[in-house]
């Protein structure tokens, strides 16, 4: 009967030994800055290549627009998607700085979506760069003449746009590196 006075064991009221995940490294400030850089890079790329139309009279007026090559159309579309994505994730990252409880969950989603966006922006850069290189140097084996000696302003715009998109893809790689390092530092030893 003495056992009846014993308190019911702590099986139900035992404090759970909450394994507090180590806080890890918090690099969300760099995250916001890099995402804003990505947004700026994609915006600049799209604007520069869209305003690069040029018309030369040889003697008939022959324009050069980005719409005349499917590679450049894909480039503009892909970079527009990247720009929209970077706006959304910049806002999400700012929101995560205010509510630190979201950070752990947000890291995984950031890495997953950033990896997809890296694939998109890298392929857009390669596509436009490949076609621009053929336009710059020509290719005598298949009889494709170079056009950059005639359309110099168009070629300058395309070249600058591809260079800024390359910078944007490097920024995306850095973003994923930062998020992976933050996730790695949260692993309990």
């Amino acid at each position, binding site marked *: 009967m003495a056992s009846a006075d014993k308190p019911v064991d702590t099986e139900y009221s035992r404090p759970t030994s909450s394994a507090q995940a180590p806080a890890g490294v918090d690099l969300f400030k760099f995250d916001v800055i890099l995402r804003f850089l990505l947004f700026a890079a994609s915006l600049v790329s799209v604007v520069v290549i869209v305003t690069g139309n040029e018309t030369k009279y040889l003697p008939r007026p022959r324009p050069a627009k980005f719409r005349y090559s499917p590679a450049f159309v894909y480039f503009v579309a892909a970079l527009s998607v990247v720009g929209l994505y970077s706006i959304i994730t910049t806002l999400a990252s700012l929101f995560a700085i205010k509510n630190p409880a979201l950070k752990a969950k947000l890291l995984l989603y950031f890495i997953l979506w950033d990896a997809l966006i890296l694939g998109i922006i890298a392929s857009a850069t390669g596509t436009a760069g490949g076609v621009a290189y053929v336009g710059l140097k020509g290719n005598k084996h298949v009889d494709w003449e170079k056009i950059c000696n005639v359309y110099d302003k168009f070629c300058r715009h395309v070249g600058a746009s591809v260079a800024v998109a390359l910078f944007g893809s490097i920024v995306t790689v850095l973003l994923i590196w930062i998020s992976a390092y933050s996730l790695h530092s*949260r692993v309990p030893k």
Partner: protein
Amino acid sequence: MTTHTKTNLDGVHSDVKVVEKPTKERSHDLFLRFLGLSLTLVATILVGVDNQTKVISYAEMKFRATAKWEYMSAMVFFVVSNAIACSYAAASLVITVMARSSGTRKSDFTDLVITALDLVLMALLFSANGAACAVGLIAQKGNKHLQWMKVCDVFDTYCRHMTAALVLSIIGSSVFLLLVLHSVLKLHYRSRS
């Protein structure tokens, strides 16, 4: 292992040791690395050795024209990056196997570095695929605004082989993407346990 003290209704104390089961180590990434290695290897070899020579008669002159990968810069970029991806897949396969067998503490940092390099190679492969696809599309359809004529009606076998190699390389680059996602998911589950 945690020790609980359970009290039965009879008041008998017993110490119970609970052994926590270790989380299962997923090792699908070795298979993925081997798949990526084989796909990029086949794509490289297919483009590297393929050529086609045709005799073209134009204004009563006959001349031979050859289609090879060296004659187009985008194809050079394609072959070089597939070769780099293939050798990286082989090297990272060896390094991952060695790091896994040595222990968990050191293999964490190695896994992180390998994931970072996987990411860079994935981006390189994607851009090489984009360049080869764009140039192949111009070769297939021509571009009348820029006065670039299509050549795939002449070199039809070569174009078919290029398309096959491009498809293989696209699958190979998505295998690299899956590798990155797999490593990140593994990190995420370990950081939550």
